[in-house]
């Protein structure tokens, strides 16, 4: 145990002290903050409006419905002819002239948008949509609907999903929130495993390339070395990640302050704009079914402490488990160039678990597939995260956790055995018989 701690310490410190680690840890938040700054900039541009003033010259007697102005396009109806407007456009202060000729509502044509600058794609489609809406509204009114009927056409459907607990009590469901957590957890885990799993693998090859392997193996057991390496490097990953979050937060806040001070825009308006954007993004990324309010509500419904604890457990468990798989690859090969072919097979189960979790498990969180996916260590970290908010029986939770821990330790053990056999063969083909002999060898 003591030796494992020593190895963890070395693996951790030797990596954290590296220049490349420090540089990466410091620059990445700056890059993220830079993106963040750009997002602020552009969303503010959006608020202030690169708004286009459009003069409408309407020669169409049938289209009486007015175009509705929006943030990006303000329509002003003018009583001038098109040639007049063309001649005076620069003086009048309008950006564009929209010319609506006399067309039938069934076949609008001949519409022109003229300006000193050519109208961009988005303005073009904006205007086309507005005209289309106007025509549609007019047609609906002609068929007998009143304005208030038109307003009533828009409706927002919001279903409250509740689960009936064992006592018959209603419990708020949190399917939306769980999907978001599962998505986020899954993506996070992918990122982590991709970034740091490979580091674990490299770390395991380190002793071979430095030829220190015999000294190490004559001092510690391969299992201790493996365990120490995996945990040490996993901690490096976590450190970097946490630092990224903290530093990004600090830098972003600072950037926001400076920016807000310079432009005289209040911080709240900036953050409001950002919030709007983030919400939009979240909805797009996560469920497009659940409106924002519902997600927040269902998040609040979850037993947060339990969820977070379990989330952390499965996150760390999955991360360690997959790191151990990478360690096993590292112990089977002599150099990094040989590792490429093994990368995909290791990622496969995670990928499979991810896709299945988000399709099968969310559809049928209590089914057989869901059960097995959430119990087998290869997929359980993600599948269990998805299932959790639907309510998982304690025994299944316990089984899944125990199997994940055993899976991790077992993989480390297998990796260390492969490592031991791998070193000693020195170019000789590792026969299955020899492997089995090593696996069964007792000290």
């Amino acid at each position: 145990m003591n030796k494992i701690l020593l190895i963890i310490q070395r693996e951790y410190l030797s990596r954290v002290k590296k220049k490349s680690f420090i540089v990466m840890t410091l620059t990445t938040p700056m890059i993220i903050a830079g993106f963040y700054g750009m997002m602020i900039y552009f969303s503010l541009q959006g608020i202030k409006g690169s708004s286009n003033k459009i003069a409408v010259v309407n020669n169409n007697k049938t289209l009486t419905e007015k175009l509705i102005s929006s943030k990006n396009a303000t329509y002003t109806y003018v009583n001038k002819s098109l040639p007049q407007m063309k001649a005076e456009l620069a003086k009048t202060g309008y950006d564009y002239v929209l010319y609506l000729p006399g067309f039938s509502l069934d076949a609008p044509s001949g519409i022109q948008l003229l300006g000193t600058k050519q109208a961009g794609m988005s303005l073009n489609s904006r205007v086309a949509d507005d005209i289309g809406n106007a025509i549609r509204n007019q047609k609906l009114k002609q068929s007998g609907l009143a304005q208030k009927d038109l307003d009533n056409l828009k409706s927002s459907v919001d279903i409250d999903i509740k689960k009936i607990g064992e006592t018959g009590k209603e419990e708020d469901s949190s399917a939306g929130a769980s999907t978001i957590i599962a998505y986020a957890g899954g993506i996070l885990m992918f990122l982590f495993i991709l970034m740091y799993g490979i580091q674990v693998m490299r770390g395991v090859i380190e002793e071979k390339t430095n030829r220190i392997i015999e000294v190490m193996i004559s001092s510690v057991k391969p299992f201790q070395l493996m365990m120490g390496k995996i945990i040490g490097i996993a901690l490096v990953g976590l450190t970097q990640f946490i630092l990224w979050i903290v530093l990004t937060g600090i830098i972003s806040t600072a950037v926001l302050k400076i920016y807000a001070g310079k432009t005289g825009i209040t911080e709240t308006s900036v953050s409001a704009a950002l919030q709007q954007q983030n919400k939009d993004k979240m909805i797009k990324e996560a469920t497009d079914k659940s409106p924002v309010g519902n997600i927040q509500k269902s998040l609040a419904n979850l037993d947060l402490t339990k969820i977070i604890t379990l989330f952390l457990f499965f996150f760390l468990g999955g991360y360690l488990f997959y790191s151990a798989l990478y360690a096993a690859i590292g112990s089977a090969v002599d150099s990094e160039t040989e590792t490429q072919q093994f990368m995909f097979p290791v990622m496969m189960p995670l990928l499979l678990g991810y896709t299945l979790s988000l399709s099968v498990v969310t559809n049928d969180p209590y089914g057989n597939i869901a059960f097995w996916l959430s119990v087998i260590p290869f997929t359980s970290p993600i599948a269990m995260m998805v299932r959790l908010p639907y309510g998982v029986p304690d025994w299944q939770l316990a089984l899944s956790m125990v199997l994940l821990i055993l899976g991790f330790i077992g993989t480390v053990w297998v990796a260390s055995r492969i490592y031991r056999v791998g070193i000693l063969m020195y170019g000789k083909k590792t026969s299955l018989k020899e492997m089995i002999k090593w696996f069964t060898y007792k000290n």
Partner: protein
Amino acid sequence: MLSVNNIVKQYAAHRALDDVSLTVEQGKIFGLLGPNGAGKTSLIRIITQITAPDSGEVIFNGQRLNSNHISRIGYLPEERGLYKKMEIGEQVLYLARLKGLSMAEATKRVKYWFEKLEMGSWWNKKVEDLSKGMQQKVQFVVTVLHQPELIILDEPFSGFDPVNAEIIKNEILELNRQGATFIFSTHRMESVEELCDSIALIHRSRKILDGAVEDIKEQYRNNTYWVEYEGDYNTELPSGIFDILYKDIKRGKTTLKVQLKEGQTSNQLLSVLLPVVNIQRLDEVIPTMNDIFIDKVKTKD
């Protein structure tokens, strides 16, 4: 101290050790000799518990070899290596602590050794910035730092210049005086003669010779002498008690290699030569370990 009993080690298509037994006595320097690929390294790896034998056993201080013995053995592998990117001081401390030393004890001993071998200024250097000889020195310190009872050195002098080789040799002898037992695997026969008390010769996976160096040499003495004298090469030598194996005459000096016949002694040789020639030198030809090595290996082939 250490006895290896009937060890067999089989790799896929190759038997690396075939029923090898040997005994290393407490406080001695034991030479493990053999041509390349004979199985020396395989045997060492079994003693250091990097691999296990297919059959046979190793007894360390009366106990069957087990993982508790790891910290009592120091091993300098032939394939040298250290963490290249790590600072020397930190690295040596780490490796010492892995052998079970406390931080304080490890620091004390590392300081002692660094001072002794004039490595003090290397503490903050990285291994990759050191010359090969310097790295070897660091590795030697790593091997002996935890005061192992048994120290196994695989080709310890390779990569050292003569000055450093001498320093390391003296350290080995001093550690030996303090009670450490050594197993010494090498091809350099002159260092075997200088250092080893006894040897085992392994060839083609089998032990073909073992015993105390003096005994083996004694065994290989065959009553052969170098004789050098002044005088005419035509001088008739009394024959009958020896055969001439080699004869060379230069600038009025004659050099002979003679083998005495059964039961004859050097004194009898002198007594027959003295009346006829002016003797300048008489040496017994004692076989070197090198000669014995080559002789044994060749005859087995």
